[in-house]
C-alpha cells in the first residue's frame, strides 16, 4: 500500500525547516521525502497549498473510558482526535476505576488497539486511586505501557509523597505530570479570583493556588532530578517560575492549552458553564504571559486538556457544573488563529510544540518525519476559515466555549500509520 503526498509545504521540526516536498508512504512507514517524487501504484494526495506536518500529539486528553462512557469513549475520543488532526493522544488516569494499575493500563491500550482511530498512550496515576495516600505500582504500569504519571485533577497535596513519587519515577525514567493546584488555596472556587469573580459573585481560584504548586514541584524536581512536566500553565507567575527553573537547569517542561491563550475570565460573564475549567480562565495579563512563554520557549508543548462532559452535567448552575471543556477539534484552528496568524509563533514553532516536543516529554519515538518511522502525518489547510459548531464534532462532548467562533486554519487530513483516518473533516 502506497501513498504519495504531493506538492505540500512540509514542516520538519527535526531539521527545523519548511520546504515544498513530496512524501512517499509505503506499508505504513515513511519511505522517502524529496522533491518531485513519483511511485507506481501509489494513491496520490494533492497537498498543494497545504502544510504537511508530523502527526500532531496531544499529551493531555481525557478519554473517560473506563467508567464515564457517557462523556467519551476511546472510540469517540480518538475520532475527535483524528478530526482535530491528532495522530496520538495521551490519556489521563482519572477514569473509574482510576488507571492506577497495570490491568487498567492494558485495558486502555487494548481497547485503543481495537477501537481507536489514533495512537493512545495511557498515563498512569501517581497514587492509588489518585487519593494522594500511597504510591501506585508505577513499575508495573510502565511495563503495561504507561508513558508518564499524573494525578491530574486530584493533585498530590502531600509534598513528602510527591517527593517519593519523583524519586521513583526518575528510577523508571518516566515523567511526572503536575496538575499544579493547592486544593487548600483553590478550595471551592469556580473561576479565577479577581474582578470578574467579584462581579459575578462566584468563589475565586487565585493564581497563587497554581503557583505555589508549580514552585513546589519545581523544587522537588530540582532535588530529585526527576523530569517534571507542568500541565496547563495558566498564570503569569507560573510562566515566570518555569522560565527561572529552566534557566537554572531544572528538568522541567510545561504545556499551555488553547483556551488559556485564547480566552480570559471575562468569558465567564453570563455564567456559560462551557467556560468552567480548571485551572480557570485567567486575566488578559496572564494570557499575554502565556503567549510570551510560548514564544520564548518557556512553554514547550500545546496540549488541549480535552475534557468532555454530557449536556446534562453542564446544563446546571455554574457552581454545580463540572470543570472541563472539549479541545481536540478546535486546537489547530485556535493555534493558527491566535498564535500563528498573530505572529506569536512561526508555523515551525507551532508544529514543534504539537509534535516533537510532546513526544519528547513522553519519551516516545513520534513527532518526526524521519524515513522509516511510522507514517503519522497531519495535513493542515492554513487558509480555511470555519465556524466552530459542536454539532459537527466527532467526539461526544459539546462543551466548547468557542461555539460560534470564526477560526482560520483547519486540519485537512490525518494519517495514522499510513492509513487515512480523516479527510476534510470526515473521520473514516
Amino acid at each position, binding site marked *: 500500500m502506497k501513498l504519495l503526498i504531493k506538492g505540500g509545504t512540509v514542516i520538519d521540526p527535526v531539521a527545523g525547516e519548511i520546504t515544498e516536498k513530496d512524501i512517499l508512504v509505503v506499508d505504513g512507514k515513511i519511505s522517502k521525502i524529496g522533491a518531485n517524487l513519483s511511485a507506481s501504484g501509489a494513491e496520490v494526495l494533492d497537498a498543494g497549498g497545504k502544510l504537511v506536518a508530523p502527526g500532531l500529539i496531544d499529551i493531555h486528553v481525557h478519554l473517560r473510558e473506563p467508567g464515564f462512557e457517557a462523556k467519551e469513549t476511546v472510540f469517540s475520543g480518538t475520532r475527535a482526535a483524528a478530526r482535530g488532526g491528532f495522530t496520538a493522544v495521551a490519556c489521563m488516569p482519572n477514569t473509574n476505576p482510576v488507571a492506577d494499575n497495570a490491568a487498567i493500563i492494558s485495558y486502555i491500550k487494548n481497547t485503543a488497539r481495537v477501537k481507536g482511530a489514533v495512537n493512545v498512550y495511557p498515563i498512569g496515576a501517581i497514587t492509588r486511586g489518585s487519593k494522594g495516600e500511597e504510591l501506585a505500582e508505577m513499575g508495573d504500569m510502565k511495563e503495561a505501557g504507561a508513558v508518564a504519571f499524573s494525578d491530574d485533577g486530584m493533585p498530590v497535596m502531600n509534598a513528602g509523597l510527591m517527593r517519593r513519587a519523583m524519586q521513583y519515577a526518575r528510577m523508571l525514567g518516566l515523567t511526572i505530570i503536575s496538575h499544579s493546584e493547592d486544593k487548600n488555596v483553590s478550595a471551592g472556587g469556580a473561576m479565577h*479570583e*479577581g*474582578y*470578574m*469573580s*467579584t*462581579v*459575578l*459573585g*462566584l*468563589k*475565586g481560584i487565585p493564581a497563587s493556588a497554581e503557583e505555589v504548586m508549580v514552585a513546589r514541584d519545581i523544587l522537588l524536581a530540582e532535588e530529585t532530578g526527576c523530569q517534571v512536566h507542568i500541565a496547563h500553565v495558566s498564570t503569569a507567575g507560573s510562566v515566570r517560575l518555569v522560565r527561572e527553573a529552566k534557566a537554572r537547569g531544572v528538568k522541567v517542561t510545561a504545556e499551555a492549552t488553547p483556551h488559556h491563550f485564547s480566552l480570559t475570565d471575562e468569558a465567564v460573564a*453570563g*455564567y456559560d458553564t462551557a467556560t468552567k475549567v480548571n485551572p480557570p480562565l485567567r486575566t488578559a495579563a496572564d494570557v499575554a504571559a502565556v503567549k510570551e512563554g510560548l514564544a520564548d520557549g518557556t512553554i514547550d508543548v500545546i496540549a488541549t486538556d480535552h475534557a468532555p462532559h454530557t449536556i*446534562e452535567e453542564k*446544563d*446546571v*448552575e*455554574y*457552581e*454545580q*457544573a463540572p470543570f472541563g471543556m472539549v479541545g481536540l477539534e478546535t486546537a489547530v484552528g485556535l493555534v493558527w488563529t491566535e498564535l500563528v496568524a498573530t505572529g506569536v509563533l512561526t508555523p515551525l514553532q507551532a508544529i514543534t510544540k504539537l509534535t516533537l516536543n510532546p513526544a519528547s516529554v513522553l519519551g516516545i519515538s513520534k513527532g518526526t518525519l524521519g524515513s522509516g518511522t511510522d507514517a503519522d502525518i497531519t495535513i493542515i489547510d492554513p487558509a480555511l476559515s470555519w465556524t466552530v459548531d459542536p454539532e459537527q464534532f466527532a467526539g461526544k462532548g459539546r462543551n466548547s466555549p468557542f461555539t460560534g467562533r470564526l477560526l482560520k486554519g483547519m486540519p485537512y487530513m490525518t494519517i495514522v500509520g499510513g492509513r487515512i483516518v480523516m479527510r476534510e473533516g470526515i473521520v473514516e
Partner: protein
Amino acid sequence: MGLSGKDLIGLQLIPAEEIKLILDTAKPMKEIIRRQIKKVPTLRGRTVVTVFYEASTRTRVSFELAAKYLSADTVSIAAGTSSVSKGEGLKDTARTIAAMGADVVVLRHPMAGAAELLAHTIEAPVINAGDGAHEHPSQALLDLFTVREKKGRLDGLKIAIIGDILYSRVARSDIWGFTKMGAEVRLAGPATLLPPGVEKMGARVCAGIEEAVAGADVINILRIQMERQQQGLFPGLREYSQLFGINRERLKLAAPDALVMHPGPMNRGVEIAPEVADGVQSVINEQVTNGVAVRMALLYLLTGGGNQHEIAH
C-alpha cells in the same frame, strides 16, 4: 416608559434612569401600604410564584405581600436544598412553573447565576431575590429608596458599607446602585472578606472602619455569618465586634444626621450595638416597609405597567 429588560437580575446592567423609574414608582406604592384597605386591582388575574431554594422569611413575605397588595395570586415554593444539590432541579422546576402559567417568578437561590439561568429558560419575567454572592437587586433598590426618601437625594452622598463584602450580594447590588445614582461608596471589613478588584466596581476600600465611617451620610451594616468564622475567614465574633462593630462612638464619626441601615436579620452586639440598632438614626424598620413598596413597583413594571396614574387612582 417602562423597564427595558424582561427580568431583574441585578443592578449592574440597569441604567440609572430605570433605577429612578423604579424608585419613583415605589413612592405611590408606599402610599397604598399606608391605607386602611391595602389593595389595588392592578395585577388582578396575574400569578406571582416565589421559588426559594434558601430559607428567607423576610424577603419571601415581602414579595408575597407586594403581590397581594396589587391583587395578584401568589404561590410560594420552598424547594428543598436536596434538590439543589442535584442541579438540574432548578431548570425542571422552572419549566413546570412556566407551563402552569406563572406571570412572574421570584427566585432566591444559593448559587450565583441561578436567576440568569432561569431567565434564559422561561419566558415569564424573573426577579432575582438573591443568587449566591452575586446580586440582590430588590434589597439595594429598597436601600436606595430609603436613603432618597430621608435625604431627598442620592447624588453626592457618602455611603459606608461595613462587614462581609466578599459573600454579600447586598453589597454588590448596593455598590452598583449607589454609584450609578452618583453617591460615593466606601467599604470596610476584614481583609479576608473584601473581594479582589472591588474598586473597579466604583467603590473605595478603606483602611479601617474609622476611615469608612468618617463623615458618612449612611452606614449600611452587613450581617456577619457565623459560618465564615467556621471557614476560618476571621478569628472570632468578639474580635470582629471590636474591629468592625458599629457602636455609639463609631457612629459619632459619621455625619450628625447619618442613617443607620441593616438588611437584617441583625446580630445585635456583634456587627451592630443594640443602642445603635434602636437609636434615632436607625431606619432599619422603615427599610422593611420600603421593601414591600419597591417590590410592588417591580412587579408592576415587569408585568408591563407603564402608566403610574393607574395606581395613584
